[in-house]
């Protein structure tokens, strides 16, 4: 079990050479490969249950996109249990909700990170009506505007099964990553998550299989990218 300290650290930032960082690079590559006819610019991460690792995936994926010289923005749209500001150690005084409620301008609340090319829009104060805010016109306008300013936008959303937020957000995105936790996510819940996303006409790019046993996951690294010294 990872300790809490390592749980909230972004491995792609701290140790880009680790096999796990390589696995995120592989994810980026595979997303780019699946964009045959339409480019995938706005990506949402979600999972069936809380704690399966969607925010970890969102933050690391943002870092590896930025490392590939892409101007990248991570938006924390999990307005129920926001975590992005913990990952990047940012203040969450202003963020997405303050932009959506016209309290502040996007430019004043978006934050730089220690990774060049990577900016983060934290969730902002937790509102009483997250679903309404996310389905507002203001939200879809914001995403449309940001498409012209960034190469890649990664939106972290709440788990699919608890609330409809993920379905609402998915309509604004080009593709959805479903994060499943090996040995933890139940089959039927994973299927339900998939069904609810499909119901919202989301384009599911594929699955990020988290929490794999080393032995199974190692097979990937042998064939992938790590350079020798």
């Amino acid at each position: 079990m990872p300790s809490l300290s390592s749980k909230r650290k972004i491995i792609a930032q701290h140790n880009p050479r680790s096999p796990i960082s390589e696995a995120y690079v592989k994810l980026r590559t595979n997303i780019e490969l699946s964009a045959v006819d339409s480019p995938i610019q706005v990506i949402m991460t979600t999972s069936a249950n809380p704690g399966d690792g969607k925010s970890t995936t969102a933050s690391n994926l943002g870092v590896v996109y930025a490392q590939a010289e892409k101007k990248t923005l991570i938006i924390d749209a999990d307005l129920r249990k926001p975590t992005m500001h913990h990952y990047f150690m940012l203040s969450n005084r202003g963020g997405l909700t303050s932009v959506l409620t016209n309290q502040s301008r996007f430019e004043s609340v978006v934050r730089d990170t220690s990774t060049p090319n990577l900016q983060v829009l934290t969730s902002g104060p937790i509102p009483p009506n997250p679903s309404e805010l996310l389905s507002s016109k203001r939200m879809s306008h914001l995403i449309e505007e940001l498409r012209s300013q960034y190469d890649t936008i990664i939106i972290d959303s709440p788990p699919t099964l608890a609330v409809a937020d993920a379905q609402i957000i998915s309509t604004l995105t080009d593709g959805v990553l479903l994060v499943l936790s090996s040995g933890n996510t139940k089959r039927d819940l994973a299927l339900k998550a998939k069904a609810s996303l499909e119901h919202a006409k989301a384009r599911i790019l594929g699955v990020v299989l988290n929490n794999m046993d080393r032995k199974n996951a190692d097979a990937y690294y042998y064939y992938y990218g790590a350079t020798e010294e």
Partner: protein
Amino acid sequence: MELELELKDYVKIVRKRLWLILTVVVLASIAAGVVSMYVLKPVYEASTKLIVNQSNEAATGMQQLDLNAVNLNLRLIDTYKEIIKTPAIMDKVMSEHPKFGLTAGELSDKVRVSSVNNTQVMTLVVEDGSYERAAAIVNAISIVFQREIPSIMNVDNVSILNEAPSNASPSPVKPNVKLNIAIAFVVSLMVMLGIAFLLEYLDDTIKTERDVETVIGLPTLTAIAKTTDEDFTHGAKSSKRKVTDKRAVLEQ
């Protein structure tokens, strides 16, 4: 549900819970050994052998073995096996030896009568917590049986080959420590393997890329291993070392 399990999967399932299986099996075997050695009371066995042989009174000097007589005796053995266990014999034994403190029923449960096929030898075996008592009982039964047969069957053809020595000190026949340990080992191993497979069967979580493919019907874009603190300090070298080692071996 994918029901096709390959041998590889079986090995994996067992390896996943190997420690649990080994622990329980070892503990069960040790427990069986301890119980057999220290808890269970030892049981001793004493036996006598009787021979069923028509003493041919007509034949004087020339003891001719008549095949018919032998066959008759073989048939008789089955009858005698039953007779020994009847109250006719048992009650007499009891009334002559009240010190055994057993009822006729208990006594007939205690005694085992066997004969090797097509021989005229019968073996009486009695098991008891004390060897001396077992020997006394089995000898008493043999003597009474030999004495009573003429009046029951009108034929005097049973003689005692050997009595149970009352002063011997054989090792107990029960509990068989090695056998008990072996049984505990095998049974607990089977049970634990069953439990391991049952747990696996009841575990309905997504585990591998193949599960994602077959159950969810989505491609796996990447697999992220469990992150440890080590991952934050070590580069890809550590996990590549195995591969480079193999390569080095190949190059030599």
